């Protein structure tokens, strides 16, 4: 069958099971868009390429399946960059297709030419420039394989216009040949035995669970391990939902804005079992005093993560699910009553809380969203205070229900990501918990949400500030609020102008009815919550401090 490159691309996407592509057309992708015109793949037209990348990412995070985005050459491709970097930092399987100028013009600074494979080299798991239409099917196969196996991550495929326009005989590719790519899934049994030995003799174990638990689908195994050895479980921001937040052994989140009891438990532990996490600086605080008395078992599918940030006593390379299963085989019931009692005392003494003073508090709003949705919504967030309050006060009980930009910390991620989540989960209630700053970074996506009838609810925690930066200025820069106060549009009117619904909320008693109205509405809704302006996210580990030493 003779097909154009564009048609071949769509055939390949179908073979990979892709149902939807998020994209934005342009000159260098005309042959691909021509194939989409009557094709069977759904295309969601965003209003900015960055949003297409985040939507594909949100789709991927909600489903575990690869998310696909498409943009033209030059500015289209560079607009994807933030989205690709976001996916890379959080190991999300996003596949980005970009148009490129015709091969004869590459390197000649042609109109809308950008070296996108060069630009994205450090923020993709791998990328390809396809110079011959005969290579296209093979490259697409390889791209999906790389993005979705081992440690997942974004892959970019750059397709010059003459390649997507050229015809060739299409034959499906079934085999991928990548001699340099052999992810290790099965853990070394010797290491598993060593880990089991450490666990058996430990008196104060703590499990730290990261995003790897979710990628690997290992929640069940993690719960079994925790219950077997009666070890409390703290999650990283990316690990939220990987262990049920309402489980008695849950410590909530650890790190900079973690719970006191999570940070105290890690600081006093004699054994840290780190599972699918890179133990980054937001988790460890001052690295020299991180878990100072603990031996460390570290399980990760990426060998380069073991020992990168924290010294490790037993490194285990492998898939988290398989490693936990193997480990459980070697373990026996092992309660630590004194240790758990100590943790319970901390939980009682230092609960996550906020001052209810009759004013509209962001923590109260998040808690209300949790109540109204019975903890079952898919929650995306922007970045900053909104993100931390969402992480702290919504109790997540299942994987893939908390969608946030953890590693890169991308403002403007949440709304388009929520759109991607809603596309993936049309029957579910989807929220973006936002700030008044972040929402304006991709506010144009209201048009996307309205035009595809995606009833995303955006809870804007509106304090008229870039709140997290303001908080740091308050605490560490003598309240010199340099450029953090925001002039904002009327978000209700903005929503209405786009054909969405807008609701303003100024009092605590209005929160619940407003949320109920938003969820019942078939339209996307902006909820403009006018919150207390200088509320801080607490507790907090000051920068460069040990995680056991918290403010607030």
């Amino acid at each position, binding site marked *: 069958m003779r097909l154009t490159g564009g048609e071949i691309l769509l055939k390949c996407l179908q073979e990979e099971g892709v149902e939807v592509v998020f994209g934005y057309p342009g000159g260098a992708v005309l042959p691909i868009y021509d194939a989409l015109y009557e094709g069977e793949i759904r295309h969601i037209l965003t209003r900015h390429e960055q949003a297409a990348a985040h939507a594909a990412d949100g789709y991927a995070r909600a489903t575990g399946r690869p998310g696909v985005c498409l943009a033209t050459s030059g500015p289209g491709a560079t607009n994807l960059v933030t989205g690709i970097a976001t996916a890379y930092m959080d190991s999300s399987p996003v596949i980005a297709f970009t148009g490129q100028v015709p091969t004869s013009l590459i390197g000649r600074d042609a109109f809308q030419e950008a070296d996108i494979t060069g630009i994205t080299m450090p923020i993709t798991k*791998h990328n390809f420039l396809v110079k011959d239409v005969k290579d296209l099917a093979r490259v697409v196969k390889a791209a999906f394989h790389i993005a979705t196996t081992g440690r997942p991550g974004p892959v970019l495929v750059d397709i010059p216009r003459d390649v997507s326009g050229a015809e060739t005989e299409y034959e499906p590719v079934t085999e991928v040949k990548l001699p*340099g790519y052999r992810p290790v899934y099965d853990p070394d049994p010797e290491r598993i035995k060593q880990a089991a030995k450490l666990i058996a003799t430990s008196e104060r174990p703590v499990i730290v669970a990261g995003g790897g638990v979710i990628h690997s689908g290992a929640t069940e195994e993690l719960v079994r391990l925790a219950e077997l050895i009666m070890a409390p479980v703290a999650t990283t921001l990316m690990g939220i939902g990987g262990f049920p937040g309402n489980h008695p052994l849950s410590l909530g989140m650890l790190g900079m804005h973690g719970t006191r009891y999570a940070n105290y438990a890690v600081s006093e532990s004699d054994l840290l079992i780190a599972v699918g996490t890179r133990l980054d600086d937001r988790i460890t605080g001052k690295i020299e005093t991180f878990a100072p008395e603990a031996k460390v078992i570290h399980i990760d599918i990426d060998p*380069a993560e073991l020992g990168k940030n924290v010294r490790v006593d037993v490194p285990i390379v492998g898939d988290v699910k398989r490693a936990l299963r193997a480990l459980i085989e070697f373990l026996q019931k092992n309660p630590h009553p004194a240790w758990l009692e100590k943790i319970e005392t901390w939980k009682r003494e230092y609960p996550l809380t906020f001052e209810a003073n009759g004013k509209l508090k962001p923590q109260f709003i998040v808690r209300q969203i949790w109540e109204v949705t019975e903890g079952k919504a898919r929650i995306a967030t922007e970045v900053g205070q909104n993100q931390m309050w969402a992480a702290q006060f919504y109790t997540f009980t299942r994987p893939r229900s908390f969608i946030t930009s953890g590693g890169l910390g991308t403002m403007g991620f949440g709304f388009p990501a929520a759109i991607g989540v809603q596309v993936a989960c049309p029957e579910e209630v989807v929220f973006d918990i936002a700030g008044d700053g972040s929402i304006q970074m991709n506010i144009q996506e209201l048009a996307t949400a309205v035009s595809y009838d995606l009833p995303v609810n955006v809870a804007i925690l509106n304090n008229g500030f870039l709140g997290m930066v303001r908080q740091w200025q308050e605490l560490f820069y003598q309240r010199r609020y340099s450029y953090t106060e925001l002039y904002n549009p009327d978000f209700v009117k903005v929503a209405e102008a786009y054909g969405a619904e807008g609701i303003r909320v100024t009092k605590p008693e209005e929160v619940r009815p407003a949320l109920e109205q938003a969820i019942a509405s078939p339209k996307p809704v902006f909820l403009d919550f006018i919150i207390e302006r200088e509320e801080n996210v607490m507790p907090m580990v000051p920068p460069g401090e040990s995680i056991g030493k918290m403010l607030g």
Partner: protein
Amino acid sequence: MRHTLSVLVENHPGVLARVANLFRRRGYNIESLAVGSTENPALSRMTIVVEGDDRVIEQVTRQLDKLIEVIKVENFTKEEHVNRELALIKVQADPPRRGEVIQIVDIFRAHIVDVSPETLIVEVTGDEGKVAAMIEALRPFGIKEMVRTGKLALLRGPRALTAE
């Protein structure tokens, strides 16, 4: 400590950029890098000399290994291996001192590969120490310009680094 890494990569355009980019991005220092084809036309081999403690070298190795087009990375530093560098040195050799230069070249078993009225180009091959000594010996005569390959290395004995 300096380590010698031998890296087998797919012979694709852009692989060198990926490797160089990795070193730049993560702040590792390349002391020298030599790339060329191998017995298998689908593969290239890079010999990279990098400075760092054991932890850094372990990170370098693992990060390199993560690159899709990198097939194998081996640290030769603690293995028995042969290593060679080649340098071309254009040295001032006016008639009165020319004989002296030629003598030194002979002592080092190096070669003269170009002759002009005022200069000679000396080709020297050897391990790093020998090349350095040659350069020092010629320096007093006046080195006009010089070029070096960076280190090449192979394991001694029958063992070989292959794609399998």
